[in-house]
């Protein structure tokens, strides 16, 4: 029997039971669509997280305080200690000690309510230095950033993020206006350019920046006026990143009088570490979802096997007759395999199409982007066909093994 005849005979058999074939195909289709969408969602999230992390600024090291350990040995968790100080940041800025460090921006922050006229807005008030703008790779939409003089003099000035400015002053320019934070009147001297949406959980456009000295003396009212929550360190180049990492570690260990690097009371995170952490969280989620989707694909495959077994039983006389007029066992087997893999193939193509529709519709319903690569689409179709084929092997072999006498006797 020629291949063309095997194929057309297979398709005729499927068309002969249109509804049944359609429902079987649907089982595969839903599984494939689920797999391709979850993988697409995962990839989309991954790329948006990557871009959010790189929007932090290039060649960036993030130094955060280490954990505290109480006398009883209870670990307070990362960032619970206040071991980083303004003095640490100043020392890191020395070109002589740390030649690979381009600039340093210590920052401390608190959540505070800002008031301007009749509107008020709760946001994070960040105390930092003029290098923040460069280190974080941000720019100003209008006005100016505070200067070293402002920091030295603890000037009552602030630079607002786009979201914060809009909520306090509407669409008009905020520059020159006054906002009140904890009873301190701050003059708005600038507004940041929007950083765009971020899927890392923090809104980079909702903040009010003040000189770190102003923050320590007036805004936070904290008990530890010289401690900072984060020191952003920018290396002079991507190649200098590891040098900057080493210099920061050595210097802070020396300043904190710690001999063993293992006992460090601070943590340095690089962008690639942030990225890999975010990616691994993402991957776990994607794997989980894809696993569930794969199970639904398995169920679809069992559906194919089920329908093929029914089909073999139902067409037992046809099989007998075909054998009587000269069909060899492997020709019968091939015919049923063609039918089973066609169910898989059609389900796969339908599933990819449904997945593409989902990829277009889903981002409108929630903010997550969906990335479907051609490789994934082709892979999905191949997998679907393979599932049809694998689950068709047993029914097809059963059909091939049928004795023609028994098959014909079946009245």
């Amino acid at each position, binding site marked *: *029997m*020629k291949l063309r*005849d095997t194929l057309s*005979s297979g398709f*005729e*058999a499927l068309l*002969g039971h249109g509804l049944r074939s359609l429902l079987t195909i649907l089982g595969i289709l839903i599984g494939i669509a689920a797999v391709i969408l979850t993988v697409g969602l995962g990839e989309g999230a991954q790329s948006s997280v990557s871009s959010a992390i790189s929007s932090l600024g290039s060649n960036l090291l993030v130094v955060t305080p280490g954990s505290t350990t109480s006398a009883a040995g209870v670990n307070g968790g990362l960032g619970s200690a206040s071991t980083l100080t303004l003095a640490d940041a100043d020392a890191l800025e020395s070109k002589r000690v740390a030649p690979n460090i381009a600039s340093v921006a210590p920052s401390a922050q608190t959540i505070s309510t800002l008031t301007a006229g009749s509107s008020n807005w709760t946001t994070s008030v960040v105390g930092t230095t003029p290098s923040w703008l460069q280190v974080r790779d941000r720019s100003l939409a209008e006005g100016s950033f505070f200067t070293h003089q402002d920091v030295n003099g603890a000037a009552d000035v602030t630079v607002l993020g786009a979201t914060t400015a809009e909520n306090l002053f509407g669409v008009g320019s905020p520059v020159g206006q006054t906002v009140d934070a904890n009873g301190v009147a701050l003059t708005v001297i600038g507004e940041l350019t929007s950083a765009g949406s971020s899927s890392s959980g923090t809104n980079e456009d909702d903040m009010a920046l003040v000189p770190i000295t102003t923050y320590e003396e007036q805004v936070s009212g904290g008990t530890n006026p010289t401690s900072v929550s984060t020191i952003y360190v920018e290396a002079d180049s991507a190649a200098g990143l590891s040098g900057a990492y080493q210099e920061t570690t050595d210097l802070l260990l020396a300043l904190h009088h710690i001999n063993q690097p293992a006992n460090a009371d601070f943590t340095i995170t690089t962008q690639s570490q942030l990225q890999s952490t975010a990616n691994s969280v993402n991957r776990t989620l994607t794997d989980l979802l894809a696993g569930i989707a794969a199970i639904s694909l398995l169920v679809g495959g069992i559906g194919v096997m089920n329908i093929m077994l029914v089909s073999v039983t139902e067409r037992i*006389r*046809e099989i*007998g*007759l*075909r*054998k*009587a*007029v*000269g*069909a*060899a*066992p*492997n*020709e019968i087997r091939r015919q049923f395999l063609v039918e089973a893999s066609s169910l898989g193939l059609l389900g796969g193509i339908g599933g990819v199409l449904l997945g593409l529709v989902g990829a277009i519709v889903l981002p409108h319903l929630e903010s997550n982007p969906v990335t479907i690569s051609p490789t994934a689409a082709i892979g999905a179709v191949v997998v679907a066909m393979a599932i049809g084929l694998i689950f068709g092997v047993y029914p097809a072999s059963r059909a091939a093994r049928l*004795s*023609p*006498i028994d098959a*014909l006797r079946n*009245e």
Partner: protein
Amino acid sequence: MAPSPVIEIEGIWKTYHPGDFAVHALRGVDFSVDDGSFVAVMGPSGSGKSTLMHILGCLDTPTSGTYHLGGQDVSTMTEQELARVRNRRIGFVFQGYNLLPRLSAWRNVALPLVYMGVSPNERRRRALDAIARVGLADRADHRPNELSGGQQQRVAIARAFVSNPSVILADEPTGNLDSIAATEILDFLRELNRGGRTLVLITHDREVASAAPRLVQIRDGQIASDEMAVRA
């Protein structure tokens, strides 16, 4: 010149084991059919005639003994080889017609040619030719359920000879038909035999069997009688 035997079986036994015991469906059958002859095989149900027909049709292999079809030993062939023999050398006509309900009449007729590897155009030409010879040219595109029993059996006869086999095996071909249709079908089969094809007709009906010049009777798995009809 004396005609050579196309079917030659010697000492055929067929034993089934439905449980712990053995059932001997055939007990040493010797039998030969000359090329181009017409033989009726008759016997009551359970006599072993169906088993004999399965073995003659290469649908089953004997437990012991030899079977030569057209000079070729088919008793030791694999299933694959037997499928080929059935395809090329044997045409079947069954009691229940066994037409595929989804296919039109001519495509049912063309089925053996599909497994022969004949091209679609050639298949169609030969199938339409065969269907015209059984007088159903105008029904070629009808499906089996649109045809009467007699017409369905004529389609089945066309299917049996379309591949130009040397032997046609007809198993109770008139069993489901009224007497008028039955006579018609027997006429078509006789016609085929006159055209030079060997015809083996299996039946339990003496009247149907009397259409053949030679009658072989089977009882309890053995040949009880083998005689030529005396023609007036």
